[in-house]
């Protein structure tokens, strides 16, 4: 899987003649490429001939984290708008991305592992409905194990209930 992904990445690099920043997921092969995993994503599409890329679309494309309410795996309208743009890009490029599901710290760890997967599955379902192939989407749940915000506050919890789309 890692090999396929890297192969696709390499193909992208050749096709567009740009250096694609390697994400931390595929980062072993690229060595020091521990940069913003989404940096290459935007630059690759901007060279793909779409001259009329609106600033709004670019802004939506930059959104790769989608947030959820407590104990919910329901996508919010703003997440759907951003996912529409990602769906178009994924269909055009045929590349593979990971959908990482996360929860806040409340509740048990293994139950949250399942809840995180339910969230990434919700994103997957939405992208597939827009025509993305399920084979392009790898689901992984980290449950409550990888919080972006520490602390036991409503704000921290809201930031941690998320799905991250990663190349």
């Amino acid at each position, binding site marked *: 899987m890692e090999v396929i992904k890297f192969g696709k990445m390499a193909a992208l690099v050749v096709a567009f003649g740009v250096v694609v920043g390697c994400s931390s997921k595929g980062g072993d092969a690229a060595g020091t490429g521990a940069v913003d995993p989404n940096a290459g994503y935007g630059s690759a599409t901007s060279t793909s001939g779409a001259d009329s890329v609106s600033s709004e679309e670019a802004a939506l494309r930059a959104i790769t984290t989608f947030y959820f309410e407590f104990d919910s795996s329901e996508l919010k309208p703003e997440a759907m708008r951003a996912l529409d743009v990602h769906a178009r890009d994924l269909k055009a490029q045929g590349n593979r991305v990971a959908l990482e599901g996360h929860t806040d710290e409340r*509740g*048990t*760890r293994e139950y949250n592992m*399942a809840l995180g997967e339910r969230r990434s599955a919700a994103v997957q379902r939405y992208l597939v409905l827009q025509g993305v192939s399920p084979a392009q989407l790898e689901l*992984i749940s980290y449950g409550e*194990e990888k919080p972006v915000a520490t602390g036991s506050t409503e704000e921290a919890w809201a930031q941690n209930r998320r799905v991250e789309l990663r190349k």
Partner: protein
Amino acid sequence: MNSLKYWLTCTVMLFMAQVALAQDAIEITRGSDRATPIAVVPFGWQGGTPLSEDMAEITSNNLRNSGMFAPFARENMLSHPVRAEEIFPRDWTMLGVEYVLAGQVTSTGAGYQLQYHLYSVPREKVILSRTVTGGENQLRDMAHKLSDEVFEHITGIKGAFSTKLLYVAAERFSADNIRYTLQRSDYDGARAVTLLQSREPILTPSYAPDGQRIAYVSFESRRPEIFVHYIQTGRRERITSFEGLNGAPAWSPDGKRLAFVLSRDGNPEIYVMDLDSKQMRRVTNHYGIDTEPSWLDNNTLVFTSDRGGRPQIYKQNLNSGTTERLTFVGNYNANAKLSVDGRTMVMVHRQDGYRNFHIATHDLERGNLKVLTETSLDESPTVAPNGTMLIYATRQQGRGVLMLVSTNGRARSEIPTKFTDLRVPSWSPYLP
């Protein structure tokens, strides 16, 4: 005004005096009005340098942790007997002490020997005299062994102080740089040894009934996989690596099978694998979340499911396939663990209308529920093999800590550690 000030000062002084007087009394009876008062006298030792471990102190803590004993403060003892004939009932009756434990440590050349005497104050006689021996680095083992013997002699319950604890420590150097280690320590947190180290999460370690193998989930390949790890040799066997969830491994009481969760069929379901043949079969079949299996006996699993809308505990017979809901009180019941006798279930519980998660015990025969903890994010309960104590994880000032609590609710203490963040404890079975 002045008189008020005077009154206040007097009250405060009086109060302070009371605190000073009562301090030891509080120490003795803290939260334990019916715990048996026992005096563990510092053991005699004639050697030149002091021993590296205070075995009387360790024994005292062990007995207190069970919630069944109230160790008497050492500094208030009127005498420090070492030999049986030095124990005089009048020294202890007036202090309200029921049992006295005294002993003498001697060097054996290669290690130590402790000759101890357990004395009943009301009966005015020694009721147990024994010797424990150990190598130079086994003073803690000796203390735990003598604690087990004394505990069993008085209560009739096999002691569980010579057991071990597994847990995961996380050391956060930065957001992307966290070191996860699987630790194995004495049940009380002492002598922790690292069994596994990873830059990705390690989850849900669990001791096999033989005490030789452990199972856990590791994300070391950046996806969850279940491993069985042989403690003595360090040999590891990857058990599952399916797409989606691979989680919540739980050993059958006979040690031959592992129950776990996979989502390869689309959503989290519970599977049981025979470890010799690697034959696997799916046990649950529901579109909701089914997770956290635990064995009631070799033919019955309990697990968490949100099939009724909220997470609750269910029971399933592996032969007949019949499923029964076990919990009805509270809006969140999860991660159930069974006591060895199968009569009590310990679980994470949240009351209706409340937001805090607590550890609660649920009597399977009578159905009554008892909440044991008072903090807010309590999880991952694990029960001592004799059912008298449990350890759970919670958060304090932003860090994960492990708490030990007696099942009768009287004793409570934090497991000491050098790490900043601990989680997912698993208590070993009785070890040979």
